[in-house]
């Protein structure tokens, strides 16, 4: 990965220029699909953009000096780390990535939930603290199967480089590993059966209860970018074929990641919120089971396969 390509990936594709409109579009499609599944018409697709602009143009309330840095720094860190994660996605096969970029990608994907937990505690609101506790518990429980799936894929192809993992992992490992990651996907996006942390109305607004105006706009932005990054992560790992022509790969990446949104919206519209015990049990038992199957397949192929 040369510096010029890194800059291109960070700023243009799949970085900011692509991810900003795509994030808003994904949030819009999700809200509209969810409304349709509930028998409503739902907001227009431009709604998340309008929400963002409106929040940005509001006058934030005064804060203590000790809070100001944290309240602005945490959402900025979340946005920055997701943009970094996006830039590492192996959309085109040639030229992207370096040895060990999987570790960096997973780290960057884990930072926004951590920022959210810290933001919840930093707000010193009781609702923020309960939301942050739930977010922390869920991110720990969901990371066990998530990391099992990723480790299985890396072991299956014998590399820590994303391009190799995406193209060379055998299907016997890839399918259970993807299933594991898919189980964790609604948890990471805080979608309905696992929407414990932001639990609308139940916890006011979870960790973000005390955030207002531009700071909340940054969190909304981070959430939109998270959608692009996580669906993109699944799509790049699921599709081993790369045409070699960059624009065909890019278009396929866009279409496939957008196609995942309605199915996630269907899940969100058709389920009720779990209790924390139920969510953890599901993730520990079924998520870890799928992850262990993937790991077992990788182990088998590695030692007895050939």
């Amino acid at each position, binding site marked *: 990965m040369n510096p010029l390509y890194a800059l291109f990936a960070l700023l243009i594709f799949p970085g900011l220029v692509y991810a900003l409109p795509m994030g808003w579009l994904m949030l819009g499609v999700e809200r509209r699909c969810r409304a349709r599944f509930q028998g*409503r018409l739902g907001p227009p697709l431009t709604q998340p953009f309008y929400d963002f602009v409106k929040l940005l143009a509001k006058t934030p309330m005064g804060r203590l000096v000790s809070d100001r840095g944290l309240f602005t720094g945490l959402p900025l860190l979340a946005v920055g780390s997701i943009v970094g994660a996006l830039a590492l996605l192996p959309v085109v096969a040639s030229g992207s990535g370096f040895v060990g970029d999987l570790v960096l990608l997973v780290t960057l994907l884990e930072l926004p939930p951590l920022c959210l937990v810290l933001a919840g505690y930093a707000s010193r609101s009781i609702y923020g603290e309960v939301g942050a506790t739930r977010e922390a518990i869920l991110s720990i429980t969901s990371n066990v199967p998530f990391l099992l799936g990723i480790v299985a894929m890396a072991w299956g192809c014998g590399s820590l480089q994303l391009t190799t993992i995406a193209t060379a992992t055998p299907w016997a490992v890839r399918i259970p590993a993807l299933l594991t990651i898919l189980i964790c996907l609604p948890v990471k996006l805080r979608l309905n059966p696992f929407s414990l942390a932001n639990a609308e109305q139940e916890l006011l607004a979870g960790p973000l209860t005390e955030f207002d105006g531009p700071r909340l706009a940054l969190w909304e932005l981070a959430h939109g970018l998270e959608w692009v990054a996580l669906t993109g992560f699944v799509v790049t790992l699921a599709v081993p074929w790369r045409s070699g022509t960059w624009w065909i790969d890019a278009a396929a990446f866009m279409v496939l990641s957008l196609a995942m949104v309605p199915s996630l919206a269907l899940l969100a519209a058709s389920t009720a919120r779990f209790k924390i015990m139920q969510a953890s049990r599901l993730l520990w038992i079924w998520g870890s089971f799928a992850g262990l199957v993937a790991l077992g397949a990788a182990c088998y192929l590695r030692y007895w396969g050939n």
Partner: protein
Amino acid sequence: MNVPEHGLMFRIVERARRRSAWLFHFNAGACNGCDIELVTCLTPFYDVEQIGIRLEGSPRHADILCVSGPVTRTTREPLEVIYAQMPAPKAVIAIGSCPASCNVFAGSPVIDGPLDTIIPVDVYVPGCPPRPHAIIQGIAEAINCLGKKRGVEMAEERSAQIETKLEVAQ
């Protein structure tokens, strides 16, 4: 953030404010009749999310404060705190007859209302309870207030008006 009141940026912001009004619902001792009617607006039949209206959990996220109930002595302080927590521009809707006039509770020693003696009110939706259509119309009026005027000035202007009105009444 200070937006200059002309040019493309301002038009986009103005449009965004009209298209995305988030509500916060505050029950100031209401009998639940108005609350049920307000929640009805979000159901598939009325579906106010079509114009970007959303019921928010936190007053810090909200643009419009919907108050139902004659403000009782115990709810007065939380109401003031919540009004102060909402970032500008903001608007207040009085839903039902209770916040407008205290309704049948007028004269009770435990009632601090009506609402406009405590915080500035932009839109009154009369009725006991008002129909969801009327509430949606009230929200639309409040959105117009948000789009046309900047909340802080508007609130100050309103409270000045109310003060003069009260003086005249006395």
